[in-house]
């Protein structure tokens, strides 16, 4: 009698789910510890393909007015078109140079023929270099924004179709040429 009753009890008994929460907590903590949340963001660029003969670049003659030369030296000083400049106003100057709204004859003929030339020393700080690069890229993206706003009434971004983006980029192509750095000031 007694025996039978206890076996009936055993049949009824369920698996205790009380520890389920603990197991899940353990897993949760494991994932919290082993994972990184930092997202991968950065300035994406496309490098020019490697060619053994650098002579090709030398033979290309450019009009001085179409070149916006930026030099950053090992002391992190900047020279824009031959004169000392500050990072803070590079963006405005680059924009003016590319678009040339007042048709000055010392700025680029058209956005298509504008070339930005960036050169640095081997001793230049990476932070400074990236800051300058960022400003030059920002100048282009602001111009793209203006262009897209004028043409399609929307800022340059995900609202535009790929074809529209291409159209904007065709009118103001991003041309940035980087020279081999001069071996100066490396630690």
């Amino acid at each position: 009698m007694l025996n039978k009753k206890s076996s009936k009890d055993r049949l009824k008994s369920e698996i205790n789910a009380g520890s389920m929460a603990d197991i899940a907590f353990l897993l949760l903590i494991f994932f919290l510890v082993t994972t990184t949340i930092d997202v991968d963001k950065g300035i994406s660029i496309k490098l020019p393909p490697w060619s053994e003969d650098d002579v090709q670049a030398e033979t290309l003659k450019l009009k001085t007015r179409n070149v916006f030369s930026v030099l950053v030296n090992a002391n992190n000083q900047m020279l824009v078109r031959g004169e000392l400049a500050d990072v803070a106003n590079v963006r405005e100057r680059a924009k003016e140079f590319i678009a040339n709204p007042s048709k000055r004859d010392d700025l680029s003929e058209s956005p298509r023929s504008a070339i930005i030339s960036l050169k640095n020393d081997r001793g230049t700080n990476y932070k400074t270099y990236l800051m300058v690069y960022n400003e030059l890229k920002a100048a282009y993206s602001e111009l793209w924004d203006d262009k897209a706003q004028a043409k399609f009434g929307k800022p340059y971004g995900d609202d535009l179709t790929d074809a529209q983006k291409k159209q904007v980029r065709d009118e103001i192509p991003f041309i940035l040429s980087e020279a081999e750095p001069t071996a100066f000031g490396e630690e």
Partner: protein
Amino acid sequence: MGKFSKKGGKADPEVSTASLPDIIFMLLFFFMVTTVMRTSELMVSVSVPEATELTKLEKKSLVNYIYIGRPMERYESEFGTAPRIQLGNKFGTDKDIPLFLEAHRAKVSERERGLIYSSIRADGEVTMGIVSDIKTALRKAGQLKINYSARARAKDL
């Protein structure tokens, strides 16, 4: 009157904890989905510079990482204090880059190989010399899509 007398009988009903595992599981799945495993231990100290023109790297499997910075304290005796390159989970030089890229490329399906990005995670204080060497090595290896890793900058210059 009868209604009030019932009160004594139903003393302290407990809050059911049966749904607690479900809540925890939900959190667990959230973290599992939104996070990425730390693939390699950082052996150089890297604090990436700030920038505004950022693009997000979408697919992690299509990105390989090149770290540049000074070796961490525990590696100083072996590798010195000058900035070094870390490829995967070991120190390397720019000469090891082609092999490193090839090893990553082999893991990616053929039609996605053109979309591979090299993420350069360099410390802000390193000089451009070492970065240029890497850029040259990448160009020689035909890896032209690169991304200078940076944090978002809130304020203007």
